[in-house]
């Protein structure tokens, strides 16, 4: 049994009296010491999936309509609120994309970490404060003894993201969910933050779910990858297997769209069209309007998930087929 198991997750948005599916049949698992990358473009459902795991889809318009999420054997979807709260921020923690908006601007950095520690670990203020300084040292904030009393606006964006990491790590979580943790950061800072996360994982054996739109970040940091397109997992495999042979035309299209720093191409092979909106009624495979391989079959039937190679799952009628 893996630490986190997501099975056939379904999420829908209610809009004008209709339920529109935004996440459909998403399954994956993550174990201790393992990093799963979820990659995809805006609107593919990757962030909603992470919010569902954290139990943050509390609103009335977005809700989980099916599937299971199990953490350490517990069913998170039926867990009483009180028990769920004891886990979140404690054994399971999340780093959000926007370090500018996810820290409270009117509280000192240290106090925001201390609050979490006192709530979950029942520490005295003084002990919690010492622990906060320790955590800031761990995430390599310079002068942690002074910074603990700074307000979020007094530190840089990269440092704010490190504070978020420190806060997430404060109770030694078993599972860390990082939703685009480096997207707002410069590349040199991104590297520092990713290195830091890898280092912490090595030390504490944390399981990480890393959500990103950047295939480069995913390729360099994750053990396994799930590629999402319009609410479904298009392709999933270990990072090595996935990049060894891309099975889904969307993944190939995504990769060909990226201008890389280490190679020259005259024209990028862009994927034509755009991601269909939720309102658009689409039969068959969600990618078929943009896919060069699409046939009548693709526009009529949603492909089942099949095994392209052992451990390499793909949702496509023609896995591995390349246009010539």
């Amino acid at each position, binding site marked *: 049994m893996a630490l986190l198991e997501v099975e056939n997750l379904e999420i829908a948005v209610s809009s004008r009296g209709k339920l529109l599916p935004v996440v459909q049949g998403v399954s994956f698992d993550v174990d201790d010491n393992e990093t799963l990358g979820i990659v995809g*473009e*805006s609107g593919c459902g990757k962030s909603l999936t992470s919010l569902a795991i954290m139990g943050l889809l509390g609103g009335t318009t977005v809700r989980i309509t099916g599937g299971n999420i199990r953490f350490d054997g517990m069913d998170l979807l039926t867990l009483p609120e009180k028990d769920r709260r004891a886990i979140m921020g404690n054994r399971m923690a999340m780093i959000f994309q926007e370090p500018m908006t996810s820290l409270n601007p009117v509280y000192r950095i240290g106090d925001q970490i201390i609050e979490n520690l006192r709530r979950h670990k029942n520490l005295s203020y003084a002990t919690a404060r010492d622990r906060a300084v320790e955590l800031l040292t761990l995430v390599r904030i310079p002068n942690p003894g002074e910074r603990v009393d700074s307000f979020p606006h007094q530190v840089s*964006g990269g440092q704010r993201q490190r504070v978020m990491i420190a806060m997430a790590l404060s109770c030694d979580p078993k599972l860390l969910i990082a939703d685009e943790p480096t997207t707002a950061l*410069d*590349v*040199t*800072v*991104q*590297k520092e933050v*990713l290195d830091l996360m890898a280092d912490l994982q090595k030390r504490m054996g944390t399981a990480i779910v890393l959500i990103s*739109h*950047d*295939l*480069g*970040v995913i*390729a*360099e*940091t994750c053990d396994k990858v799930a590629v999402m397109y319009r609410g479904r997992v298009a392709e999933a495999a270990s990072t*090595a297997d996935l*990049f*060894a*042979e*891309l099975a889904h035309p969307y993944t190939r*299209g*995504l*990769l*060909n*769209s*990226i*201008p*890389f*720093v*280490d190679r*020259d*191409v005259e*024209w*990028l*092979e*862009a*994927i*034509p069209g*755009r*991601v269909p909106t939720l309102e658009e009624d689409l039969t068959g495979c969600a990618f078929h309007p943009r896919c060069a391989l699409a046939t009548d079959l693709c526009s009529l039937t949603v492909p089942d998930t099949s095994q392209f190679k052992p451990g390499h799952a793909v949702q496509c009628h023609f896995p591995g087929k390349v246009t010539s």
Partner: protein
Amino acid sequence: MSEPLLRIADLKTHFRTKGAGLFGEKKVIKAVDGVSFDIAPCEVLSLVGESGCGKSTVGRTLTHLEKATSGEAQFEGRDFLSMTPAEFRPLRREIQMIFQDPFASLNPRLKIEQTLGEPLFIHGLCKTWDEARTKIAAMLETVGMDPKVMARHPHEFSGGQRQRIGIARVMILKPKLVIADEAVSALDVSIQAQVLNLIKKLQRDSGVSMLFISHDLGVVRHISDRVAVMFEGKIVEIGEKHQIFEAPEHDYTRKLLGSIPRVTIGREVT
């Protein structure tokens, strides 16, 4: 080599700010601090660097959106930094800017034909709306959009489509220099690739010169002829694209290139 279209020498743009606190000491921020470069006709020069390096301020100074503190900038041999707004107006057609945010850079209350048509009248390129609409329709087709969209408003379009409209608004004036400030940064990769290809094609076909400002080194490699790397208001290295990417000389350029996560396709041979 032919005469450069744009020549910038020792450009400085400094800002005065109030220091921290009520009685904080006033500070001078040297956003651009002695930048020099040339752009030849038909050439694409990229300015690359991390946030706060001053790359956007260079673009904004060249379009008179910020006031230069000192230095010189010549466009076709004429110094234009010291021009009054009235003197600069005719040059505004020739020096155009593509902005980053496709949601903020189109007026939500104007139809697409008004957004694209107004500059044509202001710069005296058209006399009647019939004439303007013909030009707008042709331009919309060039950027890969249906001419019928001219009767619609910006909120009806996706980010990628809005950026195409922003590009059409610039190119319809037949500028000589386009300054593109993070023109594709807000787009998803699959859309970014389409827009990048479009910008590259339009640049080749029209022969316009371009100052391409970006933090994304992959994008920069794809689009540029030459690259200038900026750090703390100064250009630390400038050269042909391949020299910068394959044989960078400055430590900062090497650090930037070394920080980028890479993808290896296929099995690694060991």
